[in-house]
């Protein structure tokens, strides 16, 4: 009854320098995964490829629904989402940032506002809904990024270093949100982190990237 992801033999290089050199893994539905590795080891690249916003040079990204392959198109891309490390906030209100994903799916305005308000409430930003999102603190910006993702009810949620640039208190809030996503909605979560204890707190399984491949520790 759910979407799963299998990557096989993923290769990617930038300007001739290989970053990923044959990554393979199958992600189960409903679980939380942590991807770890040194800076520049290719974690972000891996997530962008999984989230279908970048293509691998070689290898396959396959999504399955109830074990049958799902065609890679815009419909599939809309069932997963990635919160980028820099978020990529739009120069508009917090609320409009969150309604964005709904509007581009053709959901009507009143419905979009209602759902976006709930998502903002969920991350504790409802009070700031009319503020220009570019003026939010980095902790709030991270939470807004999550609200933008949550509102579209992804089946798989990728989070790229969701707590790397924020303080302890916001880290706690973000971890709590991630935990709720998993508990209440059964979302599959794949996140990158540099924090071992965070990986232990949140994830059932931790993957390590080294020299372009997943290694077991």
């Amino acid at each position, binding site marked *: 009854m759910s979407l799963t992801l299998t990557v096989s033999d993923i290769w990617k290089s930038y300007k001739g320098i290989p970053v990923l050199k044959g990554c393979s893994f199958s992600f189960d539905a409903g679980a939380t995964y942590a991807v770890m590795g040194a800076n520049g080891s290719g974690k972000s690249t891996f997530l962008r490829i999984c989230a279908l916003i970048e293509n691998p040079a070689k290898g396959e990204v396959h999504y399955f629904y109830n074990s049958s392959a799902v065609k890679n198109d*815009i419909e599939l891309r809309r069932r997963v989402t*990635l919160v*980028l490390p820099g978020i*990529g906030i739009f*120069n508009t209100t917090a609320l409009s940032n969150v309604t964005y994903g709904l509007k*581009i799916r053709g959901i009507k305005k009143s419905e979009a506002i209602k759902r976006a308000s709930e998502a903002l409430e969920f991350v504790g930003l409802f009070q700031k809904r009319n503020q220009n999102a*570019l003026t939010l603190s980095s902790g709030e910006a991270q939470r807004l990024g999550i609200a933008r993702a949550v509102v579209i009810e992804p089946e798989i949620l990728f989070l790229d270093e969701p707590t790397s640039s924020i303080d302890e208190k916001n880290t706690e809030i973000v971890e709590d949100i991630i935990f709720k996503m998993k508990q209440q909605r059964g979302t599959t979560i794949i996140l990158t982190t540099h924090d071992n204890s965070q990986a232990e707190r949140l994830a059932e399984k931790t993957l390590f990237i080294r020299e372009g491949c997943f290694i077991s520790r």
Partner: protein
Amino acid sequence: MNEIVKAFILIFSLDKELMGIIFLSLKVSGLALAAATVIGLPIGAFLGLKRFPLRRIIIIILNTFMGLPPVVVGLFLYLLLSRSGPLGFMGLLYSPSAMVIAQTILAFPIVTSLCHSAIVNINPIIKQASMTLGATSAQAAVTIIKEARYGIMSGIIAAFGRVMAEVGAILIVGGNIAGYTRVMTTTIALETDKGNFELALALGIILLTISLFINLFLHLIQQRGIIQANI
């Protein structure tokens, strides 16, 4: 001194001739700006969003044309539109239409080039973010253009400032015919030449005021855009 007083009297009495000239100026420049925006915005957006061969060359040419001397535009347009010219049959020379065409040619590279740079200056993460949220390529492009809105508006206003202040091209193709093709700048040139300073001064004051408002507006827009740059 006397002339300045008379100029203000002209302005505040809403002198009919004066108003006609101001109205025509705004109409010609406004139409030119609208045409330049309708043509230039999509081209500028395309240049900013797509990568293709010749793109750099086109941008360099546009940037060169931003500084195009208006008299040169006037000259070429005159040769095209004059009775013996290839477009002479249209009978446009010495008409407001010819002036609109001239100013469109002057405004187009400004709108296009500034629109292009506003778009390329948008952080690539905006496109990535819109894709992760489920945007199609077209929707992502619209998002980028929206993010560039303050820069684009600045470009349009800068172009308006240029065409409002311009005299060389419209004088050549418009001919400065009283009540028909006389606009603010050409009237100032002509009346000053004749030693008739009050009308020239009145128009000069209005032109300066308009220019002040254009720049005020530009400043406000850039202020709003600064939030963007601070992050």
